[in-house]
């Protein structure tokens, strides 16, 4: 699968842009503020019906205009699929595939798989555990509808259970059966999620570490741990042990909503001990491992968007990264970069074909 044509009308800072694209490699260069990332965001939008940056939809319309239109032609096997996304101010957005409008956006999401690598990925290292859970949840939900269902049920039940605990505190009363029904749903859904996460991490860990050493070209002692209270207690035990604490805090203190991923280098926290280059390499490895799982489940290579490729990476690592993503395991790749001479020299030395977009 590859995107052969992209047209952008009044999207973010772009008035009108039309691009013919290379099936393998596309390089987008331009000064800061010229809108390189916005081109990637347009491609992201065509796959997910929303901006990568999760901005309110109307903010994606170019200032002083009333609408935006994005269009892409995707080559899949012998066929060509046309996708059109448009939004008029104060109206519902429209997504059409081959001129036919979808009834629900969820029908579209997943048909044109895509992975974005962005400097923003740093939140996976520096923000709280919620970001890391969101990361694995988004991967698992993409191919396990049961996982998504259990996760949504779990989150709703958790809110209800916490509300009930607070009600007990405020009204100075307690009713065991009322609480039990919520607790047992948490146990049922939580167990499904825990088992799925364990199985997933077994595969994912090796993928990440393998990719890391390919790009770093050296054997840093990098590790990932899946941390969960469920590793120590069964769900029923854990919930029983924490009952008194839950009743005094008004919060559910045991469960898979406390899970985290721990990243280490030489057994020390990665965000403290690793260099910026090592951190960036690690984040890339996370995204590329996500890519290879997604590819396996879709049966075709997703699009790969690499925003600001030299961000915190030295020339050697960029060369390794290029070699890696230009291999057969990957499909079409988009790369943005401010200083084109360095990247272009590398590509020309290796006689790699590409399409160059200069903004």
């Amino acid at each position: 699968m590859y995107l052969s044509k992209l047209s952008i009308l009044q999207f973010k800072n772009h008035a009108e842009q039309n691009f013919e694209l290379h099936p393998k490699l596309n390089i987008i260069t331009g000064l800061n503020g010229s809108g390189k990332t916005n081109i990637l965001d347009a491609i992201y939008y065509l796959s997910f019906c929303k901006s990568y940056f999760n901005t309110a939809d109307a903010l994606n319309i170019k200032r002083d205009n009333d609408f935006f239109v994005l269009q892409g032609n995707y080559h899949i096997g012998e066929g060509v699929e046309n996708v059109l996304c448009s939004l008029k101010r104060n109206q519902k957005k429209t997504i059409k595939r081959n001129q036919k409008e979808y009834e629900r956006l969820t029908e579209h999401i997943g048909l044109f798989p895509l992975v974005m690598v962005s400097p923003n990925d740093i939140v996976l290292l520096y923000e709280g555990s919620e970001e890391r859970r969101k990361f694995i949840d988004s991967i698992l939900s993409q191919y396990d509808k049961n996982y998504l269902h259990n996760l949504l049920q779990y989150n709703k039940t958790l809110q209800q259970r916490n509300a009930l605990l607070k009600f007990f505190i405020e009204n100075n009363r307690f009713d065991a059966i009322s609480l039990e029904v919520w607790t047992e749903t948490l146990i049922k859904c939580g167990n499904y999620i825990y088992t799925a996460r364990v199985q997933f991490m077994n595969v994912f860990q090796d993928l990440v570490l393998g990719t890391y050493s390919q790009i770093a070209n050296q054997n840093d002692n990098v590790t990932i741990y899946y941390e969960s209270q469920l590793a120590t207690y069964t769900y029923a035990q854990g919930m029983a042990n924490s009952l008194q604490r839950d009743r005094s805090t008004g919060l559910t203190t045991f469960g898979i909503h406390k899970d985290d991923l721990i990243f280490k280098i030489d057994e020390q926290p990665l965000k403290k001990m690793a260099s910026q280059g090592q951190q960036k390499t690690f984040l890339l490895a996370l995204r590329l491992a996500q890519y290879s799982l997604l590819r396996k489940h879709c049966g075709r290579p997703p699009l790969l968007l690499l925003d600001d490729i030299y961000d915190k990476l030295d020339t050697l690592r960029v060369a390794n990264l290029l070699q890696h993503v230009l291999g057969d395991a990957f499909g079409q790749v988009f790369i943005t970069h401010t200083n084109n001479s360095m990247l272009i020299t590398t590509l020309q030395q290796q006689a790699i074909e590409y399409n160059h977009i200069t903004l």
Partner: protein
Amino acid sequence: MHYPSRLMEQVVEELSKLPTIGKRTAMRLSLHLLKQQPEQAIALSHAIEQFRTGTQYCEQCHNISDTAVCNICANTMRDHSLLCVVEDVRDVMAIENTAQYKGVYHVLNGLVSPMDGIGPDDLTINSLLQKVQNNQVAEVILALNTTVEGETTSFYVFKRLQHFNVKVTTIARGIAHNDALEYTDELTLGKSIANRINYEYVR
């Protein structure tokens, strides 16, 4: 806003207290009432008054009723040992429309939801337990929504009924009539396979 008539202002105020009705819509509705024959508006206000003061909750099933005991509960042809537990009057109407059910109902008038401040005591669960305790019921059918709140309410009722000598069942969830398997969503199809039933010819 300045109204030319205080009486009009009063009507707009009252109408706009209704859900989904804003000031603008309330204004349009009141102008509409003014254009109709006076009898129209009087009929409307009369209907509302009668509805509000005349209806009550059936003392047996807690459904909305014009009489102390509703038509369904008063019907001696129906099987009073079969009790279908539903959320509200809309579910009673939906099941009645199928013309397949000959038992009676028990209307909870809500679902358990701590976030909305609704606990079991705010529903008619105690009256349900009373009926079962008095040995009036052979089977309780739980027919609540598949939302988290619906499932949890079913679970709660089930737990409270566990110790009584009563059969507790729940409505089957499955594939819609005339639906092709390949278009059925994965969750429904998965549940239908997990909860499969013995084969019998189904019309």
